[in-house]
């Protein structure tokens, strides 16, 4: 059974099960067709995002030029100059055509408030966001996989219940709140606990170079990463746990055991790899989410990434910048979904190649 591409890990997990029963038609040709289809779909989605972002942000009420000059004595000529600089004097359809033409060439326009190319602004902030979210995703995926495996293998036991309970509780905590608490306790210091970590930012800016600089950045990374990991790892844990539980019901495990394999081997060799599939897929989808998802943590920890930029752009409203960021956020999700889609058949041991 073929299903439309979906980012929901559930659907994908189901898809995996669906392929069980289906005859193995997989071949390199089939894979190429699958890949081409997914690629086409992603391109269509990307184009749809470009179009929507243009119109979506035109509904934000407000004349950006008047908003920017509010409270600053500005002559009518100056207003006209600003409008001309921003291309706001053109009719809407012409703005749209310009926007599309430029966007296809990779030019996302010029920010109103920073007067710099949007692409450049985003490129400037992207590494910070990638660093924060990348480290967080790696850690919470590893943590989730590990704990999920333990939990499933000993399901129903005290350890499992504790494990799932703690994960679910942390998952229910608002991340910005956790971040603020961590600042109070570990950054300002509370009672006997001294302020161990910086209160915000990405580097202390005292001119370290080389390895010292790396360490400095890592030092600043600790609290935001801990926040993201704490609220994020439950997802990986739960998916890993339930996939593994599904696998453990499989006949082949009994067979493997009957063959005299030790439980540990059965787990490591057979169950875990199969259960990894939906989990790894989900991790990729998470990667797509994190860019947009770290808005709050970036705000709380003054992290110089895309999240802060987005919030700032929205309040002006700095249309080209908001549009550009939206395209980047949505684009990240489309890209990660595509990777997950393309990777899936390659990873799935049941799909022959």
């Amino acid at each position, binding site marked *: 059974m073929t299903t439309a591409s979906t980012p929901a890990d559930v659907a994908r997990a189901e898809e995996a099960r669906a392929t069980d029963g289906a005859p193995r038609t997989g071949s390199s040709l089939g894979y190429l067709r699958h890949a081409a289809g997914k690629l086409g779909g992603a391109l269509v989605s990307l184009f749809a995002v470009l179009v929507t972002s243009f119109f979506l942000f035109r509904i934000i009420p407000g004349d950006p030029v008047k908003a920017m000059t509010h409270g600053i004595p500005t002559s009518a000529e100056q207003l006209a100059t600003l409008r001309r600089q921003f291309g706001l004097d053109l009719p809407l359809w012409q703005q749209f055509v310009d926007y599309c033409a430029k966007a296809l060439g990779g030019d996302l326009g010029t920010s109103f408030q920073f007067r710099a190319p949007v692409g450049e602004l985003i490129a400037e902030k992207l590494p910070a966001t990638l660093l924060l979210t990348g480290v*967080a995703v790696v850690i919470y995926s590893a943590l989730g996989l590990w704990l999920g495996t333990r939990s499933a293998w000993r399901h129903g036991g005290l350890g499992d219940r504790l494990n799932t309970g703690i994960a*679910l509780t942390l998952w229910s*905590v608002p*991340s910005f709140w956790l971040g*603020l608490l961590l600042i109070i306790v570990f950054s300002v210091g509370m009672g006997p606990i001294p302020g161990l970590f910086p209160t915000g930012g990405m580097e202390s800016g005292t001119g370290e170079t080389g390895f010292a600089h790396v360490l400095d950045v890592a030092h600043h990374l600790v609290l935001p990463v801990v926040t993201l990991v704490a609220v994020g790892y439950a997802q990986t844990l*739960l998916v890993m746990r339930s996939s593994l539980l599904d696998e453990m019901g499989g006949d082949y495990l009994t067979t493997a055991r009957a063959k005299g394999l030790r439980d540990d081997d059965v787990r490591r060799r057979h169950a875990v790899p199969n259960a990894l599939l939906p989990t790894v897929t989900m991790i990729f989808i998470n990667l797509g989410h994190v860019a947009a998802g770290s808005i*709050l943590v970036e705000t709380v920890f003054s992290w110089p990434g895309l999240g802060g930029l987005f919030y700032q752009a929205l309040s002006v409203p700095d249309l080209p910048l908001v549009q550009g960021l939206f395209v980047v956020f*949505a684009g990240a999700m489309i890209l990660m979904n595509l990777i997950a889609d393309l990777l899936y058949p390659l990873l799935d041991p049941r799909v022959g190649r």
Partner: protein
Amino acid sequence: MTSTEPTAPSGTTASSGTTPATESSPATAPGKKKPPPATASTPATKSSLTWARRRSTVARFWASYRTRRAGLLGLAGLALIALLALTAPWTVGADVQSVTQAPGTALEPPSAEFPLGTDQFGRSLLGLLIWGARISLLVGLLAAVLSVAIGTLVGIIAGHYGGWFSTVVMRITDWFLVMPTLVLAIVLATVMSRSMWTVVLAIGVTSWPTTARLVRAQTIAVESRPYIERATALGGGHGHVMGRHVLPNVMPLVLAQTTLGISTAILTEATLAFLGLGDPTVVSWGGMLQDARDAGAVSSGHWWYLAPPGIAIALVALAFTLCGRAVESVLNPKLGVSR
């Protein structure tokens, strides 16, 4: 991040990767829930029979749910919080949110008179916390209901009509799925005026696609059963099939989705309020956190202002998640092991 990010559909998160209905296994869908043979043989019989059957279904559901400890815990927690919220007009009274009649002075630490201290206007934080539960729960409930309602409608229609129509609708749904939901909700909340309804709408219209997908799959599963064919042959129109046969069958799924959705919605409400996108004149948990931050409670060491609303949000979200997971595992016996 999940907690603050409605994009990660809680349904998928907490459902442990398995859901009651799947597109891929239409024939094996919730067979246990409602014995098809009985329904199939008598599509339109006396209502008493229908009611008896529904009663027994509910009884069976409860019997199964009762064995799930986490689910019971969540349910008990919810009952307690709901009781507190519903009786708030008598226990704390609407006056608790009045700034002009505030009983205390600004930012008092916890004391016998104010067990959780006071806010910057001298209002009792315990009173505000209880009063705030009303708005937080209401917004969470309304937003989840709105989201699930949209999802169910889209899902049933897409599943029922099929063909190119379904393809187009599902393409749109897929496309919504890749939208960064929090970003979209922030944009919507920024555009519209600050009010509770704005928040409900912003959450509702951005978080429905997961439900739509699941409901569509379930709809297809239900409609592939023979009795539907018979009902159509007997002259049942589209409305009849969707309303009388499909809807009752997707209701359990919808229930599970709503329960899980509320927990996400409450977190999103808190997030939006924290970003200053809520109604500042209404007391909600997220709004209290925003007020605490406005007052500079974090750096002044007023932890008693900051901690309780966050804990309250986490507890309610957790309770709804536990209930939702329990409901799901009842509906999908395969998950029985996970309790």
